[in-house]
Structure formats: C-alpha cells, structure tokens
C-alpha cells in the first residue's frame, strides 16, 4: 500500500467552484447596482419621451451604423491579411508582424488616435500627399471617416490574428490530402479554409461589433458632435455634464440589451473565439499556388503593415524631440514621471486582479455543473464587454459615496473597474492553455491523487506560466491605456498618462502630446518585453525551444 498522504491543500472541489461563482455573482450584482442606483438617483421621470426623442434615435442609429461598417471593413481587410500570413510562413520578420498585430489590442486608444491624426489629420502626411495628387478631395478625418479608420486600425489586426489562428488549426493530415489532390481555388476554400473559419466568424464578428459599439475614446476624439455620438459617449456626457442619471441609465440599458442579445445569439450556437494561439502544429504541406498569388499576398501584407506602422512611426518621429529637449530637460518630466507613477499604481493591481479573476472564473467554469450555475462564470467573461464601465463606476461611486478629495479611493475604484474590464481579454488568453490539459493527464492525476494545490503547482503552473505573464501584460496594458473610467473619476490636477495626453491634445500642445504618446508607448513596450522574458519550463533545461508535439506513433 502506498504511504497514506494527507489530502492536498485546497483539494476540496469547493475551492474550484466557489471563488469563481462569488466573483461572477459579485460582478452581476455590481452591474445591477450601477444601473439600479442610477435609476434610483434619477427619481421619477419620463422615460418614454426620452426614448422617442430624436437625439436618442440619432445616437442609436449612428452607433449601430458605424459598428456595422466597422465590422464589415475590419473583417474584409483581416481576411486577406490572415490568408497571406497563413500561406507565407518563411519570410523574415513574420514573427514581428504577428507581434505588431497583437500590439493593436493593447495600444491605448488615445495614443493610436494621436498617431492617426499625425498621418491622416489636417496637417498629416497622408493628407499632404492627397493634397498634392488630388486637390479638392474633401477628405476630413473628423467624423465617420476617422471613426471607421480608427476602428479598422484597432480591430482589423485583432481579427486577422484570430482568423490566422483559426486557419492554423487545420489538421495537418487534411492539408496533406489537399496538397496531394492539388486542390486550389474554390475547392481549396470549401474543403480546407472555410471549415476552419466558419466556427470563429460569428463570435469574431460579435466581438468586433461589441468593441466598436461601445467605443468611447475614439468617438470622443474623432467624432463627438451630436451627429457622430455613440451610446457610450452619450452616457458619459449625460453623467459628466448634464447630471442626467435617467438618461444615462436608459442608454446603458439599451446598450446592454443590444449587445447582450447579440452575445446570446452567439452563445446559443456555442461558438467561441480565442484570442491567442494555444497549440502548435506540425509542418504544413505546401498547397497549389497561382502565378500571381505570391505577389498579391506580398502586396496585401505590405499595404497592411504600412497602414499599421505609419501612425506608430509618426508618434515616434514627433515624440522624440519632445522627450529629448535641448534647452529645458526637466519641465516635461515633471509631469510625465508622476503621471507614470499614478498610471502604474492603478494598472498593476488591475492587471494582477484581472489575471486572478480570470483563473478563478475558468476553474469555476470547468467545475460548474447544471445550466444556471454554469452561466455565472460564463457571464464574467462577457459582461464587462457590454456593461459600460462608466455605469459600473458610477454605480459604485453613488453606492460607496467616497469622500471627495481623497484620490486614493477614486483610484482604487478605477483600478477595480479597469481590472474587471480587462477580464474578458485575460480570460481569452488563459482559456486555451487551461483547457489544454488532456483528459488522459487528468485521469492520471486523479489516480495519483495530484489534486488541489498540488495539481495547480505541478500540472497547471508549468503550462500556464507563460500565458499568465502574457495575460498580465495585457491586463496592465489595457488598464494603463484606459481613458474611460479615469475620465469620470480622476481629478484633472493629478492626471494619469492617458488623461495627461488628452489634456495636452485638448489644449493643442501638440509637441508635448506627441512626447507623452511616445512615452506611453515605450512604457507599454517595456512591460511587454519584461513579461515576455518569462520562460516556459521545457525551454528552461536541455531542449531549448518548444518543439511541436509529435503525433503519437501507433503500432
């Protein structure tokens, strides 16, 4: 008989189930509280008249229209890019291009927008080219043009990354068969590519739609007039300037209803999107290529890279002189360094919290049985996407009634909400790796009694170390770039980096804004660089890089 060991720490199933359930219900409660307290604070008022008003209908119409166009454009651009990246694996810098695509997820909106303005704005490079080649073109960045451009800038890379990942899950044997049969054109698409893309497309479209539907900072900077306002901005304006809680609550309910029913449809079909690759496949077979195929792929990729890079280059070119000033080097950093400290003070706890919540939620989702119990952890992953953070924040604010003049309370509130907002993204990064433990390993672990803390330490932690570092980087970065919640609670005298940038943009101190933008970009890159240094266990000793898992050799 093996020596009888004590039950491993935290091995009771409740440790997997309850924390996630508590967090999920807490989030639901928070959202309910936010809406409830808004409605309560608003008192009796005329909801029907508000909903029938032309302002409300204009806002709804514009929000839907721009989100719809953004989805079409983003997916339309992402699809050829993903194809080109899928078919061309051997060109130098492919890994860098993939990093560039991932960067778009965390690039603070306000930084990207300032880059886009530098390229496409009135005095931008692109506009200058257009002026020279096509006088009287009437291009104007502000309005629908700019909103769509910015949405494509953010969402096309994200969509391309997800589509590429879907294309890479085509099983190697199927590719070999297609290669041997010489499939090309329509039948290659029907037999190989479409089956791989079909399951992710609805979820992806819903994700892009939600991100554009709830877009805030882009609309604030590039749109903003009554003709180009989204619900999220209307909520902000109602809360911040008009103190009209009824209107804010009603708008928030509309947003919840529209995005919620969209996700409900996606869920009904049991579709899922994963943001990050979670498996490596063996060497793909080569497929039939047309004569111009390579040229077309190269052109698509080059155009897309130029589109993504020019705003970043513009930020760097304009920001460098501000960061390395000749005459008075201290003045700029007087503002930058405290703002960085404040940003990190909010972002690091938010990132850590987002990772912890994601892990507990995944544990609960794996453990939860029964229809209703399983809904709660699933909600945690999607609710933050569709509940306006401002509503959560305002609800908490009204509920907790923190003393004004104590910035710490406001900041911890901001950190909490930013953490929750990052959960859908950290969750997606971690979901694949958590479920990558196959049932054979789980059975083995059950038999050996590797449970609770021991299972986490010896089975999950080695697999999850790298994804956790990545998720942490995303969590911190998303929170670092946040401009939504902080705009409501932050005090203008003590800005975080994005608020400082917004203030500088707002007062037309463009050189300083460029410097702040570049600084924020550099902070983000250094966070990613330091956290991607975390190594996976198998690369630590002996073998070097992770090898693709070999197919089992049968008898």
């Amino acid at each position, binding site marked *: *008989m093996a020596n009888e060991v004590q039950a491993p720490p935290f091995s009771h199933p409740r440790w997997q189930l309850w924390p996630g359930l508590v967090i999920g219900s807490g989030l639901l409660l928070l959202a309910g509280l936010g809406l409830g307290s808004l409605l309560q604070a608003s008192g009796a008022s005329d909801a029907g008249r508000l909903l029938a008003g032309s302002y409300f209908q204009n806002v709804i119409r514009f929000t839907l229209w721009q989100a719809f166009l953004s989805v079409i454009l983003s997916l339309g651009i992402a699809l050829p890019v993903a194809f080109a990246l899928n078919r061309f694996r051997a060109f130098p810098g492919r890994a860098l291009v993939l990093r560039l695509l991932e960067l778009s997820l965390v690039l603070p909106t306000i930084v990207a927008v300032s880059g886009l303005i530098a390229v496409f704005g009135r005095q931008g490079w692109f506009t200058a080219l257009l002026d020279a080649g096509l006088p009287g073109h009437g291009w104007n960045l502000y309005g629908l043009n700019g909103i769509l451009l910015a949405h494509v800038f953010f969402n096309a890379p994200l969509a391309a990354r997800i589509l590429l990942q879907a294309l890479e899950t085509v099983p190697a044997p199927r590719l070999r068969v297609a290669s041997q049969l010489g499939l090309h054109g329509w039948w290659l698409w029907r037999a190989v590519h479409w089956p791989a893309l079909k399951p992710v497309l609805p979820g992806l479209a819903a994700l892009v739609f939600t991100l554009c539907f709830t877009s805030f900072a882009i609309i604030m900077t590039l749109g903003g007039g009554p003709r180009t306002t989204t619900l999220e901005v209307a909520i902000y304006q109602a809360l911040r300037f008009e103190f009209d809680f009824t209107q804010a609550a009603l708008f928030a309910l509309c947003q919840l209803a529209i995005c919620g029913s969209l996700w409900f449809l996606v869920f009904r079909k049991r579709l899922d999107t994963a943001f990050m690759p979670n498996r490596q496949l063996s060497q793909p077979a080569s497929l039939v290529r047309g004569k111009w195929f390579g040229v077309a792929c190269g052109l698509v990729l080059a155009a897309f890279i130029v589109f993504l890079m020019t705003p970043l280059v513009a930020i760097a070119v304009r920001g460098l002189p501000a960061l390395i000033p000749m005459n008075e080097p201290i003045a700029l950093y007087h503002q930058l360094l405290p703002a960085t400290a404040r940003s990190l003070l909010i972002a690091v706890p938010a990132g850590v919290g987002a990772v912890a919540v994601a892990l507990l939620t995944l544990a609960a989702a794996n453990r939860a049985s029964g229809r209703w119990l399983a809904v709660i952890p699933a909600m945690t992953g999607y609710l933050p996407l569709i509940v306006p953070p401002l509503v959560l924040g305002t609800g908490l604010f009204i509920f907790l009634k923190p003393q004004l003049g104590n910035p710490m309370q406001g900041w911890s509130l901001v950190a909490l909400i930013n953490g929750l907002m990052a959960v859908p993204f950290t969750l997606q990064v971690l979901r694949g790796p958590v479920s990558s433990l196959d049932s054979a390993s789980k059975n083995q672990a059950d038999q*050996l009694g590797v*449970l609770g803390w021991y299972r986490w330490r*010896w089975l999950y932690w080695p697999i999850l170390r790298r994804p956790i570092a990545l998720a942490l980087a995303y969590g911190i970065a998303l929170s670092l770039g946040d401009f939504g919640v902080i705009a409501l609670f932050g005090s203008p005298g003590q800005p975080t980096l994005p608020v400082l940038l917004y203030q500088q943009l707002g007062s037309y101190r463009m050189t300083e804004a460029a410097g702040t933008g570049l600084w924020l970009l550099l902070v983000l890159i250094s966070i990613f660089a330091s956290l991607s240094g975390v190594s996976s266990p198998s690369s630590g000793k002996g073998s070097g890089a992770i090898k693709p898992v070999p197919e089992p050799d049968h008898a």
Partner: protein
Amino acid sequence: MLEINQLCFRYAPNETQWRFNITVPKGQCLAIQGPSGSGKSTLLSLIAGFLSPDEGQIFWDQHPIHTLYPWQRPVTSVFQEHNLFEHLDVFSNIGLGIHPGLKLTPSQRKAIDSGLERTGLAGFGARMPGELSGGQRQRVALLRALLRQQPILLLDEPMTGLDPETRAILYDMVLEEKQRGVTMLLASHDNEERRTLADIQWNL
C-alpha cells in the same frame, strides 16, 4: 481477491450495455482479450474509477471500492500511451506517483534513481517525455506504477507497438511485481503477451 459483481455500464442511454462479473485471486494476472470496442478499456476504467457504473459493485479484500474516488482506490493504471505528463521531466513524473505534491524523502529519491538504473534509464531523470522513445516512455510509466506499490495493477495494452527487447524488459518488471503478490488485469490483443504474463484468460 478482486471481485467484480454485476457491474453495468453504458456510455449513452440507448447504447449497448456492458455487464461484467469477474473474480481475480490475489497475486494472479487475468488477461482479457476481445476485439476493439468489446469493453476491455471500459472495464479497466470502471475499476480505476474514471467511469462510474450504472449499478454493481467492486470489492477488494471484501471492502467495496466502487464508492471511492480514483485517488482513493488501491489501483495503478498503465495505458498504451499518454501515461506521462508531457511538461514534467521523467523524475517528476515518477515522483508524483509517490507523493502527489512531490514532497519526497531522500530514500524515495534514491528509490527513483535506482529504479531508473534497473530499467536501463540511468541518468534520464532530467529528460522530458518528448525526448524519449516509445519504449522508454513505457518503461518510465511502468516504473512509476511499480513504485506506487498499489496492490492492483491495471495494464491496458501497455506493450502494444513496442519492439521485442523493450517487451522483454517490461515482462520482467511485471512478472517480478506479480511475484510480490500484486493482482493484475491485462487487456491485450497479443497472444505471446498473454501467455507470458497471465494465469487466467478471459474472452469478452
């Protein structure tokens, strides 16, 4: 004595039901043969507790074990493949069988090292499973099973697809265990394997 008493199982409500009635005396090896899909692996999974039966009982030494969790049952399984945790080195893979949190005494560490030596894997402790051949992986899996010193060993085609030399090493290891009084169930297609290892043969 391992007694399996009217054990019933079906994967889905309208699929065929399996019913098992077996007795294996202590220290003997029962070989089960039958075509693929005849329920060999199902039976072994039921004994290990990976599947739960619709009805019936399993007794070990007159104690019911079908109510226990997999980690509480006095059994160790070795499958045809996927026995090892791919992200842990050989030493940790074996060590987790002795203590599920890898808290090993010096003598247990020595036992692992000498076990590796005995099976021709001296110095392989720091290797990852991915760097081993199929035969080497099975030797590690079997070594872990033996070091667990559980009274029941469930072998689910553990030697299928291995070369004759590796088989010979594994046969020796299994037979030595049997001599120590371990009770075994062996699912196998292979005549030679059953002849070498089994005391009783049973057709499904």
